[in-house]
């Protein structure tokens, strides 16, 4: 029994360790980059130690208990008294809370039923069980009262409205304090810092790659690495396509799915792929895009970032 439990815990521990690693390779955000990692390791370590200490303590308690009993038994044997073990506090509590009829008095409550040799006792209902039943009935009545007779607790739709109200308040606050929440195609700019581009890449791999390929070479969607664009190649135009999609094509609108900041990052990331010449690209679609004079500065920035 013990051996099996030990085996089981080890196996399970190993397997969950594997879980962490596989998750690492499966998703693009690495577990090992998590700033909370040290915290988790420390907490996990403390947890394991506490469990081990508890187990050892329990074991020692058991040994101690056994030794005391052994000593008492030996003493009573020396004194010639028949040793009778005192029932533990827990077993007394257990008997009492279940209202057990003691085993030796069992024949008093044996009914005269006999079904293929099966006899039946007439033990009382365990008091805690009856109590539990009553509590659940009271809970049921209170539940129906709170939800349906008074308006104390919100039903699902009301709950949803409350949730939305909280979220809207948060969004309002964030827009006020954080300009990136208000980005749209009129004020989007090319971002060049490495963190933002890395975020853009993540967004690209999780959302765009299924149609444009991981390397941007194009599949269901067009090649994003050449000079040809169907709807314009400025960051504003790319942002607009990402945000609103293109009616009648496979390009869906990403507004609402990903934040404006992420759309800015991914649009910027897409521009960094230009000229990367992936293998087997999709044939060009649209027209060669030449930046308008006022956006030249943006393009130079991109080139600088490359």
């Amino acid at each position, binding site marked *: 029994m013990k051996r099996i439990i030990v085996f089981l815990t080890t196996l399970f521990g190993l397997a969950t360790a594997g879980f962490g690693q596989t998750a690492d390779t499966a998703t693009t955000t690495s577990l090992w980059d998590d700033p909370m990692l040290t915290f988790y390791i420390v907490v996990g370590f403390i947890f394991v130690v506490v469990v081990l200490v508890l187990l050892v303590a329990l074991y020692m308690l058991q040994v101690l208990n056994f030794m005391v009993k052994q000593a008492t038994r030996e003493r009573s044997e020396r004194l010639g008294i028949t040793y009778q073990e005192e029932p533990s506090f827990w077993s007394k509590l257990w008997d009492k809370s279940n209202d057990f009829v003691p085993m030796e008095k069992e024949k008093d409550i044996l009914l005269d039923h006999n079904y*293929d040799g*099966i006899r039946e006792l*007439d033990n009382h209902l365990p008091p805690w*069980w009856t109590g*539990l039943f009553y509590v659940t009935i009271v*809970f049921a009545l209170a539940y129906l009262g709170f939800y349906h007779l008074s308006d104390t607790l919100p039903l699902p739709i009301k709950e949803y409205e409350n949730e939305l109200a909280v979220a809207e308040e948060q969004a309002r606050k964030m827009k006020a304090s954080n300009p990136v929440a208000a980005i749209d195609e009129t004020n989007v700019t090319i971002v060049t810092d490495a963190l933002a581009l890395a975020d853009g890449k993540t967004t690209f791999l999780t959302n765009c790659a299924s149609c444009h390929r991981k390397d941007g070479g194009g599949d269901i969607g067009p090649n994003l690495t050449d000079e040809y664009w169907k709807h314009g190649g400025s960051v504003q135009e790319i942002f607009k396509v990402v945000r609103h999609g293109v009616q009648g094509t496979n390009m869906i609108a990403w507004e*609402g799915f990903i*934040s404006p900041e992420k759309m800015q990052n991914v649009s910027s990331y897409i521009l960094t792929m230009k000229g990367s010449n992936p293998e087997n690209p999709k044939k060009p679609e649209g027209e060669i895009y030449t930046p308008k004079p006022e956006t030249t500065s943006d393009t130079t920035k991109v080139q600088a970032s490359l």
Partner: protein
Amino acid sequence: MELEKIHYDNKIVKAFIIATVIFGIVGMSVGLLAAIQLFYPIANFDLQYTSFGRIRPLHTNAVIFAFVGNAMFAGVYYSMQRLLKARMFNDSLSWIHFWGWQLIILAAAITLPLGMTTSKEYSELEWPIDIAIALIWVVFGINMIGTIIKRREQHMYVAIWFYIATFVTVAVLHIVNSFEMPVTLFKSYSAYAGVQDALVQWWYGHNAVAFFLTTPYLGMMYYFLPKAANRPVYSYRLSIIHFWSLIFIYIWAGPHHLLYTALPDWAQSLGVVFSIMLIAPSWGGMLNGLFTLRGAWDRVREDAVLKFMVVAVTAYGMATLEGPLLSLKNVNAITHYTDWIVAHVHVGGLGWNGFLIFGMLYWVIPRMWNTKLYSSKLANLHFWIGTLGIVFYALPMYIGGVVQSLMWKEFAADGFLKYQNFLETTTQILPMYILRAVGGTLYLTGVFIMTYNLLKTAASGKFVANEEAEVAPMAKVTSTGGNWHHVLERKPVLFTVLALVAVLIGGIIELVPTFLIKSNVPTIASVKPYTPLELHGRDIYIREGCVGCHSQMIRPFRSEVQRYDPKGGEYSKAGEYVYDHPFLWGSKRTGPDLHRTGGKYADSWHFRHMLTPGEVSTGSIMPAYPWLYEQQINKDITASMINALRTVGVPYEEGYEDRANEDLDKQANRIVEGLQLEGLETSSDAEIVALIAYLQRLGTDIKLEKVATNQ
């Protein structure tokens, strides 16, 4: 008093036992295949008959109706004869019952892989098989009631009460849930639509668990556990109280499968509170089982039979506490649609049903073959390997369920979903799926060990086909004493009627208002019936078992509305489903919800995605559906489809069935032309075209309502 010599029929028990073991192995192997498919999609074999959507119902039907069902009949036939001191009422009925049930299983094993399904969980079999089930069930009932009538024991023991409740309730559930309108020999539409269909289905589904997997097994526990332990049953009064409260309360709890859905709030709340009130009645059974072992615990250590039974009863207690807790709205909000539920049912199925069956088999076979168990060592090995299997099955699924659910709900600081791509949440828990398959393999290995052990046992003894017993005839003068319930135990007909009344109350109070009171399903003017092409697509969606992994019910949570309808901002409304015969809300999200998928992607995306899901969405575990591109829809039945739906209340105008195929062709050609522009060639009759039409329609009608109100 003169003793009479009678013979108990062991042959029929033997037949059911053999079927139990065979279908146990088959059903669990199919389950293991399904488990492997979830992390290794190649195991779908790109073959329609073996793809997950069709394999899953095959697994559930095989383990529930073939494995647990046959074991139930074996246990009932064995114990009932002895408890009533009478051979079964009629041997021919016994054998009709046996062969009828096996033919039904055979029919299921053929039709489910062929995609003939109603899509209603645990009630997937099509209408001719439904009728056969009803007939065979009645044969079983007559045989049972007949035996009770000609009994030689004045009073009915508690096991018999549970058998009676099982018989009447399953009959009612099966018949009411199977009202359907045939289209062809193996195709029908549910008579109910949307919300109502969902309520009837989960009233059935939940109580199939209650009255097919629970009550007969409680009855069997009440026979085999005291027999094996050689101890008197702990408390007769506890039996009475927990029996009646259990059957009365259980029937109300179905709506807890539909919390936060479009089901009316009052019905949801009834589902919650009756689930909570179910804790004590369920635990009454567990306590009566475990306390019966008082004074026999030292034997539990050695005896594998008792060990199996103890774990079975404990698993029953765990599952029946967990179930009510899962019915609390705040818990349900997290666990519904996740693998937690899969773990929950498997604790019940593997622990309670499986282990009780194994315990029963180890006890009964040596007795029927008049010998000793071949190896108690192997039986103990089976016990430990099985227990380990359950742990390895359940724990990863608990973890996976919670992890995935929390990922679904997590918002980043910018107010958007942190894991916007559903697939990320799936790949995250794939290691848990692998562990689950390990658990399943362990459990199945145990069953093989048992099979060997039992075969060896049988070989070492001699089968007693007709077991002789000397019994006294029933006393002519019925005793007048005893409390009211003891009196009731002498009156099987009255008892059956009372049990029927007890189970009907909850069903009637929940079902009737949902059908009759209009405000329970507020209508939406812009929601229109499906077009003929979409209907064909919907039938394909049903045939392929898409509902096994994709829900069509967006709950009113910010995280779900944001994920599935960020622009429209609409959760799913009751009025959107009024033409859905059957409803397809689903109960598990292995893939994303599809209720607002219409218009989200282009036709060509679906076209490519269904052919190579793993390429379009890298890492997707969805099977490929290459046959949809080769097979053609059957336009000959379009008219019967329209007619059948009109009969159950969908307002297609008179005579539309004759023009339906014209509309169908027009819509199909539009889609095919669109695909051609993208360089994708397909025939307009290809099944994929119909499926795309259906997917693009999903959840879009409500948007027209918005347009209409804005104008």
